[in-house]
């Protein structure tokens, strides 16, 4: 049995004329499939009209004001980061420009010679420092544990500062709501 145009009339929102309405009624009396669908659709409409409208819990507007404040704070942080990023980009561009400007005056053999000379100078100064340290420790042996303790202390403080710096960077990156 053909269910058209009856199914179309059944599910469409368009009004149908009295003749079509009569034809639909006749079809519904004969066709069980369309009759069941028609009844089901009526039941759906009935259910929609009787279910309660869900409502938000009290204090919705206050929560919205809080969310708006958090959103603004987040936007502010984002602006700061964009500003820092902008500064970094400008500085990088300036450095790159300087590099490219000086690139035409770049002499490879001269630069290599300067590099080797600088490395040799640093090595010689380091060697001098070692010799001075050896002489001092020979003259005053007590200085060895003192300098060791001082060195370890200095390293610990540096490490603690580094951890603090890292944790503050991580907390700054976290969304505002997560931080509360």
């Amino acid at each position, binding site marked *: 049995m053909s269910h058209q145009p009856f199914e179309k009339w059944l599910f469409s929102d368009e009004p149908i004329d009295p003749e079509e309405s009569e034809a639909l009624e006749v079809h519904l009396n004969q066709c069980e499939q369309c009759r069941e*669908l028609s009844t*089901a659709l009526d039941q759906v*409409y009935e259910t929609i009209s009787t279910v309660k409208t869900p409502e938000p819990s009290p204090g919705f507007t206050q929560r919205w004001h809080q969310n708006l404040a958090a959103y603004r704070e987040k936007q502010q942080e984002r602006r700061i980061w964009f500003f820092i990023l902008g500064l970094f980009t400008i500085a990088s561009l300036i450095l790159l420009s300087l590099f490219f400007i000086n690139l035409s005056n770049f002499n490879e053999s001269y630069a290599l010679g300067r590099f080797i000379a600088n490395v040799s100078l640093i090595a010689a100064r380091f060697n001098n420092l070692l010799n001075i340290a050896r002489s001092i420790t020979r003259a005053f042996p007590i200085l060895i544990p003192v300098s060791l303790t001082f060195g370890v202390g200095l390293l610990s403080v540096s490490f603690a500062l580094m951890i603090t710096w890292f944790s503050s960077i991580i907390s700054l990156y976290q969304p505002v709501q997560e931080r509360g």
Partner: protein
Amino acid sequence: MSEQEALWIQKALQGDDHAFGNLVEEYQKPVFSLCYRMLGNSKDAEDAAQESFIRAYRYLKKYDTNRSFATWLLSIAAHYCIDQTRKRRLTTVSTDSLPAEIISDRNAPNPEREYRQQEKEVLIQNLVDELSPTDRAAIIMRYWHECSEVEISQALDLTVSAVKSRLYRARQALAKSYLELEKSKPLNERRAHESPAF
């Protein structure tokens, strides 16, 4: 839109948060209701409704005063919920996890009536959940918010004929799903709903 609402919008555009707060107070129920029907639970509905109002506040300058403010807000909420529903499809959602509101309240004055009401609530939510996100939004706006097809088309960025076709398809799907659910029910449960004459 009332004169009062127009004034609140005007003030909000000048940066008055409390004026927009009045609009939130005024429209929280329809926006929350749409989000609830789209997402199926209070927690997600609350988050979606809050986010919709934040977005509305952000984009208030783009609001065309010739359009209905309510429809504009529902449009923002519907788009947000459609996105959320699409994202959510990647994760499995159990149908056993019923929203807190529809768990039976034993202290209700008429527990049986309350139970029937909750049963209807679960039924309609399950039926609506089976629709595609855009069809779901169209049906919710049409039947729970009584929006016209033109308003739905504006809200969902569709043509009027596309809305008609989506509503047609959604009605058909709802009726078929309802029928399948009824047929899958045990016989004694079905009889309880039938007329005593049969």
